[in-house]
């Protein structure tokens, strides 16, 4: 289906380098998770792929360079969920999710029956039906996050970019949101790139992790090879134990530095 390729992606803001030569290639159904301390350049990579910032190097979907495509084409092929989405309080959940159909609606037309049906299905799938006429401002954090993911899914794009999808959620909703994304990529072959801070969850769901530090990729591979206590100490400056469960799960447990 869709291949997302990064080649020597370099991004700088006012001369300050944020991402320095990022390379990767993802195939349909793969989940890549970007990890790394704040300011490592994770969000910049996602924003470049969403066509929101200028960069040098190459980001391409099926060999189509992002800047050469129209905003409409991009939105049909890449759904982007920002870290803190701006959600108008007095928009109903249906109206909000329908925004995801924007790339398919002609400039001055309005939503077709098909658009409504797509949104209907997604709301059902994400268990949001009972909220469909609630105002977005009245939703809880978990419900809001689901509404944002619903909007992204309404784009029916083969590539899904998630910037900190679980940052505002409790442990239950974190699991729920990630399980959902995982299910979708397995069923529909979605290509997923996410930026995450929770290393255990990142290792649990993603096929591959890429550890970024000061704009460069410093480690990449599966959870076992990337999540090592020496690596974490070096790049996060954290003292943490890494525990390997028998089923292959890698658990990162922070330690107290001064344990008296």
């Amino acid at each position, binding site marked *: 289906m869709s291949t997302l390729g990064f080649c020597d992606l370099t991004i700088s803001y006012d001369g300050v380098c944020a991402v320095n030569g990022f390379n990767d290639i993802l195939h349909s159904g793969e989940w890549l998770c970007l990890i790394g301390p704040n300011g490592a350049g994770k969000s910049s990579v996602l*924003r470049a792929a*969403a*066509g*929101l910032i200028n960069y040098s190097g190459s980001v391409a979907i099926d060999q189509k360079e992002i800047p050469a495509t*129209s*905003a*409409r*084409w*991009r*939105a*049909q092929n*890449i*759904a*982007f969920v*920002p870290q803190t*989405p*701006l*959600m*108008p*309080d*007095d*928009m109903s959940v*249906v*109206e909000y999710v329908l*925004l*995801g159909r*924007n*790339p398919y*609606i002609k*400039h*001055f*037309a*309005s939503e077709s029956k098909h658009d*409504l*049906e797509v949104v*209907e299905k997604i709301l*059902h799938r994400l268990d949001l*039906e009972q909220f*469909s*006429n609630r105002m977005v401002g009245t939703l809880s954090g978990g419900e809001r996050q689901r509404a944002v993911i619903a909007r992204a899914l309404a*784009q029916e794009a083969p590539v899904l970019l998630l910037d900190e999808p679980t940052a505002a959620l409790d442990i239950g909703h974190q699991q729920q949101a990630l399980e959902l994304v995982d299910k979708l990529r397995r069923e529909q072959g979605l290509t997923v790139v996410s930026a995450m801070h929770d290393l255990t969850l990142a290792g649990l769901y993603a096929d591959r992790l890429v550890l970024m530090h000061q704009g460069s990729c410093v480690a990449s591979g599966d959870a076992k090879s990337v999540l090592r206590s020496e690596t974490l100490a070096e790049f996060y400056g954290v003292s943490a134990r890494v525990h390997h469960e028998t089923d292959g799960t890698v658990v990162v447990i922070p330690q107290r530095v001064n344990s008296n």
Partner: protein
Amino acid sequence: MLLAKRATRERAGTRFSVWLLASFALLITAVLVGTMIGPAGPQWWRVPLELLNRLPLVTIDSGVSTDQWNIVWQIRAPRVVLAAIVGAMLSVAGASYQGVFRNPLVDPYLLGVAAGAGLGATLVFTLQRQSTESWLIDPLPLAAFGGALVAVFFTYLIGNAFNKSRSNTTLVLAGVAVTSLATAIQTFILQRNNDVVRQVYSWILGRLSSATWGDVRLILPYVSLSCIVLLMHRRLLDVLRVGDDEAIALGTNIRRVRFVVVLAATLGTAAAVAVSGLIGFVGIIVPHAVRLLAGASYRRVLPLSILLGAAFLVAADIPSRVLADPAETPIGVVTAFFGAPFFLLLLRTRKTQT
């Protein structure tokens, strides 16, 4: 489930059509009352009778003389119609500006329309107004219209030249700068020509008193075009509500949308300002009233703003001719008089956001 949701969508649709009908009824009422009331002319209750009499196939003896009818038709009617057009334009332009700039406190004069028009008008007043009265076309609306467009053009030019990021703050700040510059020039000219201060001042406060059918014909094409273009953007303005980045990620060419909306709103506003002077507050209070009543979706806000804006200005024009009879109270004073308390009310109960 599909049925259930359709039902709720229909319910929302019904509520909107109720609002639409109510606003329309309000507009008709305002127009009727507006043509019935005023100094001179026939007794108020005779006017509707005469209006019916003028319809084909209806004959009613309303007792309105030809002279009285002329007052109603040549003086009051164009004034009422012009108030409706200007009110509709300022309101829908205000709503659209609030949409593209995602700022609830923005009015259609934001990018320099008012100051530019004011400067243009000042220039005409100082260039010996009397001597222009024999001219074929009245230069005042043309100068105001031109001044408004030139000011906004400069705002856009400066805004884009200094705008490295894609934010619209630069554009707003450029508007502030252009407004100050034009106002400064205007003040300088007025300082040197004390004799026209009064005329310029009364123009700035807005005036519908000298409205003619000619004014209506002059601005109707611009205003209609502008309203149609803005209405066509109502769904896209809803997309812009999620912010620039997300709107782009959803496939919107926001630069183009913003440019076209600003252009259309400015053209219409400049035309309205050219014949009516600067009428404040309409562009802010009407869209906000609509949001409070019918919700913040631009699909509802834009059409309702057109109807309610028209009704509001027609209604506001009535006290402006009756309050200080026989003198006129400037309509800008009336709208601001109702606008200021409304703002306080809004601050108290503000639940909406653009």
